[in-house]
């Protein structure tokens, strides 16, 4: 385990940023944090987490795929892809690290999404253990250990220091690259903090939430549950939950005619939208109830069914704090699963 | 200064466009100094327009104009002949460059009894 005094954290950032782009949570003018590029003077946010999840860095909200140019009546297809540069993403919480696994299973299974894959290959993920989880956190429900985050490198922050441990080859390389700045350390301080955090985790209001009622094979059982009717009634059908969600991976591919050619790009889509997956015959899901059900069934039933039981919710709590009407997956789970 | 340049300069200085004149003669009809003048307001306009300015420079008419602006007021086309007369007058004054009275002389002449306006107009008229 390597240790660095927090006083020197900016030296570390500077060293990392020298040969790789470094992204880390930075406070914005409205007080919320966002993964931003580090540059001299950038201050690492103390926030528990960012509003937008780190999936933006692998799967941006909009991404140009290719371009078409017309010359007279001929069409030329231009591949505008650029090989991703190496980058480090720093301070990723356990839940968000887990979200990469959820995304990987979608984008890296055949056919591989080369745009996503390229970014994943070039990224080093430095995770950060939680010490002050929020009341909206429920990662434990999905078996995620906020205290021992995964990632290429795991990090723990105490009041004075930050500790690193490599989990992968990439992680080893990363630690080697900052070796000069860090010192070897035992894990006493880290373990102390882990114990404290574990206590808090148990006290979280959503600590008792379980996935017992969900998982593959539950489709028919849950399909006609009255909760969909009841809870979808006041759903506004906005896309907030899906856009702040670290695991939502739906996108739409569109063409934009620039006047000098056509850019084919993709952008996030939301299953909450009435235009979502609209086809020639019309929409699959005609009512907000169906769309509402889709979102939660996908997270809790369909995805685990197709992915070996892995839920596609990581309990980060973003949708809990951002839904305009405070409707969320925790309420749905609670209602269906009943209180333990 | 050649003929054309003088015309341009007078037009520029006066801000008058003599082409606007429709030759109605109302300026001359209204002019109180008409009988004193060799060249009448409408002729001023026409002569400046045609560049026939030399006779005007040498004519007494320049100093007969009272600058009462009746012609300016009455002209239906907004030609403003009095401004043109003034501009021609200035050409004469500036050309000679041997003014009897220079601007620097004025302060000495000022006294409480004399309106400053009087001196200024005198300066204009009698520096010929």
């Amino acid at each position, binding site marked *: 385990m390597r240790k660095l005094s927090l006083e020197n954290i900016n030296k570390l950032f500077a060293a990392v940023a020298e040969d790789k782009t470094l992204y880390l949570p930075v406070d914005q003018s409205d007080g919320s944090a966002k993964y931003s590029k580090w540059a001299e003077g950038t201050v690492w946010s103390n926030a528990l987490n960012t509003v937008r999840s780190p999936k933006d860095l692998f799967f941006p909200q909009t991404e140009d795929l290719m371009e078409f140019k017309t010359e*007279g*009546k001929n069409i030329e297809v231009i591949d505008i892809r650029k090989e991703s540069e190496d980058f480090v993403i720093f301070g990723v919480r356990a839940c968000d690290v887990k979200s990469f696994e959820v995304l990987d299973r979608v984008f890296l299974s055949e056919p591989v999404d080369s745009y996503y894959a390229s970014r994943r290959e070039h990224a080093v993920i430095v995770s950060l253990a939680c010490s002050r989880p929020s009341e909206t956190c429920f990662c434990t429900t999905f078996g995620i250990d906020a205290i021992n985050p995964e990632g290429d490198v795991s990090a723990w922050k105490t009041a004075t220091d930050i500790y690193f441990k490599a989990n992968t080859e990439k992680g080893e390389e990363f630690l080697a690259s900052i070796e000069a700045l860090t010192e070897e350390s035992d894990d006493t301080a880290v373990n102390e903090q882990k114990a404290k955090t574990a206590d808090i985790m148990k006290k979280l209001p959503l600590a008792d939430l379980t996935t017992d009622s969900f998982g593959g094979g539950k489709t028919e059982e849950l399909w006609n549950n009255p909760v969909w009717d009841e809870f979808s009634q006041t759903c506004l059908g906005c896309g907030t939950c899906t856009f702040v969600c670290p695991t939502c991976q739906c996108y739409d591919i569109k063409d934009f*005619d620039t*006047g*000098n050619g056509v850019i084919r790009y993709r952008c996030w889509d939301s299953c909450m939208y*009435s235009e979502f997956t609209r086809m020639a015959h*019309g*929409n699959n899901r*005609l*009512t907000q109830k169906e769309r509402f059900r889709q979102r939660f069934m996908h997270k809790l039933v369909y995805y685990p069914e197709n992915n070996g039981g892995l839920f596609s919710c990581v309990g980060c709590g973003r949708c809990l704090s951002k839904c305009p009407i405070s409707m969320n997956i925790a309420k749905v789970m609670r209602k269906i699963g009943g209180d333990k | 200064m050649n003929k054309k340049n003088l015309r341009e300069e007078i037009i520029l200085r006066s801000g008058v466009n003599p082409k*606007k004149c*429709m*030759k*109605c*003669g*109302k*300026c*001359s*009809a*209204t*002019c109180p100094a*008409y*009988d004193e003048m060799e060249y*009448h307001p*409408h*002729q001023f306009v026409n002569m400046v327009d045609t560049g026939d300015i030399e006779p005007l420079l040498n004519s007494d008419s320049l100093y007969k104009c009272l600058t009462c602006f*009746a012609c300016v007021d*009455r*002209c*239906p*086309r*907004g*030609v403003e002949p009095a401004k043109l007369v003034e501009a021609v007058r200035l050409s004469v004054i500036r050309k000679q460059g041997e003014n009897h009275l220079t601007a620097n002389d004025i302060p000495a002449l000022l006294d409480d009894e004399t309106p400053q306006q009087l001196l200024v107009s005198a300066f204009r008229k009698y520096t010929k």
Partner: protein
Amino acid sequence: MQRIGVFVCWCGSNIAGTVDVKAVAEALKAEPGVVYSTDYQYMCSQAGQNLIIDAVKEHNLTGLVICSCSPRMHEATFRKTAAAAGLNPYMVEIANIREQCSWVHKEMPVGTEKAIILGKAAVAKVNLNTPLTPGESPVTKRALVIGGGIAGIQTALDIADAGFPVDIVETKPTIGGKMAQLDKTFPTLDCAACILTPKMVDVAQHEKIRIFSYSEVTDVKGFVGNFDVTIKKKARFVDETKCTGCGDCVDKCPMKKNPNEFNMGMDNRSAIYIPFAQAVPKVATIDAGACTMLKKGKCGLCSKVCGAGAIDYTQKDEFIEEKYGAIVVATGFNPISMDKFDEYAYNQSKDVITSLEFERLTNAAGPTQGKLLRPSDGKHPHKIVFVQCVGSRCAACAEKGKEYCSKICCMYTAKHAMLTRDKYPDTEVYVFYIDVRTPGKNFDEFYRRAVEEYGVNYIKGMVGKIVPEGDVLKVQASDLISNKQLHIDADLVVLAAAIEPDKSARPLATMLTASMDTNDFFTEAHPKLRPVESPTAGVFLSGACQGPKDIPETVSQAGAAASKVIGLLCKDKLTGNPCIASANEMMCNGCSSCERVCPYGAITYSDKEFRMPDRTTQIRRVASVNPAVCQGCGACTVACPSGAMDLRGFANNQIMAEVDAICK
């Protein structure tokens, strides 16, 4: 996908001089949808149109782009061409590469580049054009003529003679207008009354004509073929149906000291009055501002002497609503006010008068029974000065006069001068002029006669000032020919005041949505080709409301307007403009924003049952557009936030395609 043909017109050298038409045709070939592109010297010629028709057939074209002059010029032509080729006429778009390209840009590369861009925009639009079919609306077979002067009278008579009912609305108590006030008419010197009053009588007796005198139009709604007009009949306190026009009331009325408008205020009339002997309708009118009975409830003499019992002090303004298929504006003119021309002392001396006042002074029915007497002392004037262009051609004094030439003054001044010399040979007559303009049949001959035979002194130059002194008017003027300043002691000065449109024209134009120029003359649909029509369909122009005119011109225009009206009223149905709004009911949420901005009331709402996406049925309030009423302005399309309301022919996606093409 459309199959578009592009046709680039040279317009002789008008376009080809500044635009490389071949390059334009070539460049547009590569545009999406274009399958054929060519150029030709005159597309609008028969040969050019045939070329288009042949190309449509040969290349199976579905849309046409004509790169030519303004669509305001030949859009209709090419739509007809398209129709002749079997296409929907609305599959044509014009790229205006003449007025807005070749004529305003001087360099060939610049003009060519822009022409190509304009062509691309037109192609982009045609790609999204859809065939449109005009709706039909019925025609109310009745015409309204606003103004009862010679223009209105002639128009009304011509329309009525063709068999269509006509209503004349006149603000004054009688029709007749300015012509009724004139003495003689140039250049033939006919007596105005002798030629006008029979026509007035014709109007009164025509079974197809109704006269609303002492009335005004207060509201106009609707559109060509279907105008709904509200006419206010002002209370004249005399029952028109009973009054015989005997004049007993006029004689007995004690309130005799009211300026007589008909005689330009140069004598007086009573509070109850008939404007003049040949008035039509010959009905008395009570001047409410002058009548003591109406003001104070005392008197009532007229009622007592009226054998017909026509006096009705309780009469109220009456509002009449009537439908018309066509409206003719004939609101005429007035001399401008002389108040601001201090130099001519109009307000200082009674002996400085306007030409229209002079007409009354020389008219046998006028205040002096036709004897030319000075208004101040009733003496014969022996030296008369006429001043022309008073307030006309006055560019520098917008607050005083008018920039335009009033057109009629030269001739009537010549007439006045000639008649004066004819009747009173001992009178010296001077006419001060800037130019004498006599372009008309026998006009110059007339003017020359005044000079050569009657000895009128025409002096080139303007009057500078007039000063009343004792019983003469000191006139100071230029004589530009002899280069002298003249001083004349005149007994009478006559000012040829500029004329301006009647003040009622401006509010009327707003009601009619007819456009006006900066001088408040009505604008014609085309200055040369459609001079008697307003750009607003169904509104026609007659007489001086459109521009200064003399009587023969007025009468010819009046007849022309009438023939246009007849042409319209002959139709049983009008085909409308198909470029109108329409609501997509699936997207309309019934919010009423569009209804609120529609100037024609063309949008209505109804509850309709819809099958919703979730397969339920719902009753929703949705908008619908009355195609006969909608004029296609598009105000509603912007008021509608969802874009449910769109405009055919100028659809959102079409305009955006044009924007895109231009900004490429």
